[in-house]
């Protein structure tokens, strides 16, 4: 359970916490300014993190009942 709680915070830290350090245009990645790319990347990472949380969460192993 513990790891899941930490994972929950990761997207918030990655996007909001790092913003002051990634607020720049260069280098361009995938055609986007760096700050925009950073956020787009974190949207994908958030999806992956939620996927990991889902796998680790014992509540999801039982059927549809809870």
């Amino acid at each position: 359970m513990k790891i899941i709680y930490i994972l929950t915070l990761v997207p918030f830290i990655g996007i909001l916490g790092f913003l002051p350090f990634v607020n720049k245009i260069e280098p361009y990645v995938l055609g986007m300014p760096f700050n925009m790319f950073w956020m787009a990347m974190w949207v994908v990472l958030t999806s992956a993190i939620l996927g990991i949380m889902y796998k680790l969460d014992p509540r999801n192993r039982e059927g549809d009942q809870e």
Partner: protein
Amino acid sequence: MNIALLIILAFLLLSIFLGIRSSKGKDMDLEQWTVGGRGFGAIFVFLLMAGEIYTTFSFLGGSGWAYGKGAPALYVLIYITLSYVLSYWLLPEIWRYAKENKLMSQSDFFVSKYKSPSLGILAALVGVVSMIPVIVVQLKGLGIIVSEASYGAISMSEAVWMGAISLTIYVMISGIHGSVWTAVIKDIMMVAIIGFLGIYLPIHYFGGFQPMFEAVDAAKPGFLKFPDQGLSVSWFISTVILLVFGFYMWPQVFSAVYSARSGKVFRKNAIISPLYTLMLLFVFFVGFTAILKVPGLVGADADLSLLRLSIETFDPWFIGIIGGAGLLTALVPGSMLLMSVATLLAKNVYKEFAPDVSDRHIVRLAKFLVPIIALIAVYFTLNGGETMSALILMGYSLITQLFPSLLFSLKRNNPINKFGAIAGIITGLAIVICITLSQSTIGTLFPSLPQAAKDLNVGIIALAVNFIVMITVSIAFRKHAVQLEPKSVNDI
């Protein structure tokens, strides 16, 4: 009438037709339709929620902010994404409690948790007040689409009236529930059109994304970064947090939670939903392309940028298709919002004062209220000069006031009682309204603070005061509060 308007009209008639068809044979009220027997699986709940979350705001307002404000527009992408992280924990809890207690609406949730019908009425009224700006956004969207697609023949205010009338007719004819299929068509069309425009326009005009951004950066230095003051990094962080807290507080979204088959549905949807928001990137690309190609749109006119650029680029028939998709993104959520407001007023406010009236009577009253609410929204649409984004942020500042008492109600031994909840919500609302009317920012209220603190979203203050008042009053009235919730049976 030109070909663009004809195509848009065809979309309107098609959606009304689908609405009529879907309402035949079923005579359900809004809650029954939304709650749907609590049997919906992941895909259906996803569509239901996407239908309510992605409105004409994502279509026109998102590109409008990219056009007018630059990088800060990214908040739209981020708050939706981070809300899904919250949903992983929040929604299964709400769903289970609602199921155990057979709840139908958001008001019911507050009534049941705090054993206070007054709090339920208050929550319903907060919902009503918060949804009005969002309805205004949909009307603005309809107005923009129709007036732009008429190539100047129809003025903005005439177009807003036409939009409001269409919306009202759509709600009245398609019965008390809209068509799910219209919502599905809307999402498919929106994704297809936005994806196409976001890829085609930068390549057509600049040869690619990076050349487009470089040109914008050269023409407007600093525009692609968060500025040092104003819509700065601290504005962004505080705004996103505020919006994440408010995201699931909308009454129509809240009750859509009830429709799921299990709590697992939300945890599953949380994985895939962030990827869907990436579509908004393409909306931003359109807005950024428009900066250099259709310059000169200032203030609320920035919301016109997507359509102006499209008109510059494409033939009228294609403007009709874009307009048609835009029409659906306003009509589908607009009708849900209008119905929600009408139902909240009829069922969760009026019925509380007149408990003996029949359900038929309530349904009739809700229908009667629809045109009145539409009129009120028209009034605000024609008399307010705000951008869509400003309106959405205002709605969120209001609805977020429900979050503290809702969050605490999920705790097993809730230290908050109904007195605290009611006092907190009312104080929070009062502050939001004062701030909005006086157009204050933290900077104007506390000029001596450092810049980063001045830029914080002013809605945060209302939320913080709400929180403090809620706790203080709860402690002060501890003795008066009746024994609250008998703890729920199977907590984690």
